[in-house]
């Protein structure tokens, strides 16, 4: 009997305690990442908008890439991280992993939207149209739909346990499909409009341009981590609102105010 109960207890401790342990940790880390993000973003903007030279062909307009490229990179990367946490959650049955992937989704979708928006703004002067069915823009659009589907599904299911697992499955299915979608769209694109202007012909980059973009990408990383940690905290509070530690925590916070 005893040897049967032991693993049970440690397992339930693992499952229940993890969010409780993570909550204060996330609270401590998030402001630091937010600070780093703000500083990096300021440096990146300064490099991009004041230091980097004007492009010979595109003029000042090209400067939107300092936001556009970082956002596009981040939107794809965040989806992979989401799929990773979903996988961990399904295999290990840890709640925090599911919370992580759900906390990441809105940020990923936001970056996706920013990438599309800035892409359109860039496209108008460059291509003469806000939108062309370029392979990258199109797969970015489909990625946005995947994000929206994930968020809609996890919010439509009331039971949090079902929502977690269902969301994890669709995230994994999406992750398997993202490369397929990307390559099929690329193939479709080369077949249908080979002659159009493509993002591939980006101007050869000056070192300051590259540095600026990298700094902006790092800023996006730090921002994502900070925002996700804050979102994880509020999700933990919502999920565990009936537990003693959350009630104590909330009372303590109210006491401070």
């Amino acid at each position, binding site marked *: 009997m005893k040897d049967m109960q032991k693993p049970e207890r440690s397992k339930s401790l693992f499952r229940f305690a993890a969010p409780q342990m993570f909550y204060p940790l996330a609270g401590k880390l998030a402001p630091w990442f937010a600070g780093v993000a703000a500083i990096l973003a300021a440096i990146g903007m300064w490099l991009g908008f004041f230091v980097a030279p004007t492009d010979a062909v595109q003029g000042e307009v090209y400067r939107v890439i300092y936001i556009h490229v970082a956002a596009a990179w981040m939107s794809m990367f965040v989806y992979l991280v989401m799929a990773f946490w979903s996988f961990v959650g399904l295999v290990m049955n840890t709640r925090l992993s599911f919370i992580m992937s759900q906390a990441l989704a809105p940020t990923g979708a936001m970056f996706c939207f920013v990438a599309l928006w800035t892409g359109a703004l860039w496209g108008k002067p460059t291509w003469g149209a806000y939108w062309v069915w370029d392979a990258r823009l199109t797969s970015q659009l489909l990625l946005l739909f995947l994000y929206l*589907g994930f968020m*809609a599904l996890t919010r*439509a299911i009331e039971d949090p*346990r079902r929502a977690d*697992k269902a969301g994890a*499955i*669709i995230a994994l299915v999406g992750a*398997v499909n993202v490369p397929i*979608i990307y390559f099929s769209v690329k*193939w479709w694109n080369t077949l249908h409009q080979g002659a159009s202007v493509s993002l591939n012909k980006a101007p050869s980059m000056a070192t300051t341009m590259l540095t600026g973009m990298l700094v902006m990408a790092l800023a996006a990383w730090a921002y994502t981590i900070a925002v996700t940690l804050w979102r994880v905290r509020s999700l933990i509070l919502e999920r565990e609102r009936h537990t003693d530690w959350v009630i104590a925590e909330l009372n303590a916070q109210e006491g401070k105010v």
Partner: protein
Amino acid sequence: MSRALGPFAAVLSRDLLLAWRGRADVLVTLAFFVVVVCLFPFGVGAEPNLLRTIAPGVLWVAALLSTLLSLHRLFAQDHADGTLEQLLLTPEPTVLWVVAKISAHWIATGLPLVVVAPGLALLFDVEQGALGVLILSLALGTPILALLGAVGAALTLGLRGGGMLLALLVLPLFVPVLIFGAGAVDAYLSGSGAQAHLLLLGGGLLASLALAPLACAAALRIAVE
């Protein structure tokens, strides 16, 4: 082996029998396909060259939409009357009867589309040689749609507004199938040969046959929990 095939055969034959008894639903799906295809000339004008150009895309998009229309029926009835719980309690692997259900669903809703499509293609004056490619691309592509769609149907089982959610979940996943399916016919018409497209569709069918039932089975377990 025969023991494992028992549930597979039982589910397949029952679902086909049910599709036959409820054939009005199947006919509605088919009618939807025909009507959607026939709407396009009214929207874009009856210029024969234009219609010829857009025909593969139109047929494929319409096939995709009618697949979507029937998807929510795949598990809904079994979920409501408790059959799904019983099926999940069968000792044999869940994927077996999941594949049986999806197969029956495709035979009832996908296969009629494949059969009707060439007739509709003639309305768009598609070259007769391309009809074979169209049939083949639909025969390879619509099962993929059913397999991917089944995952979405299982995930949205019993949810309010499940139909719209299902569309949002699966339509982005359908895009590659659409590209290669319609692309096969285009490639044939442009003279570059449809073989590559059809091979990719075949590969996609095998891959989704291997993976989608697993995801679908997991989603069904979650849905009844």
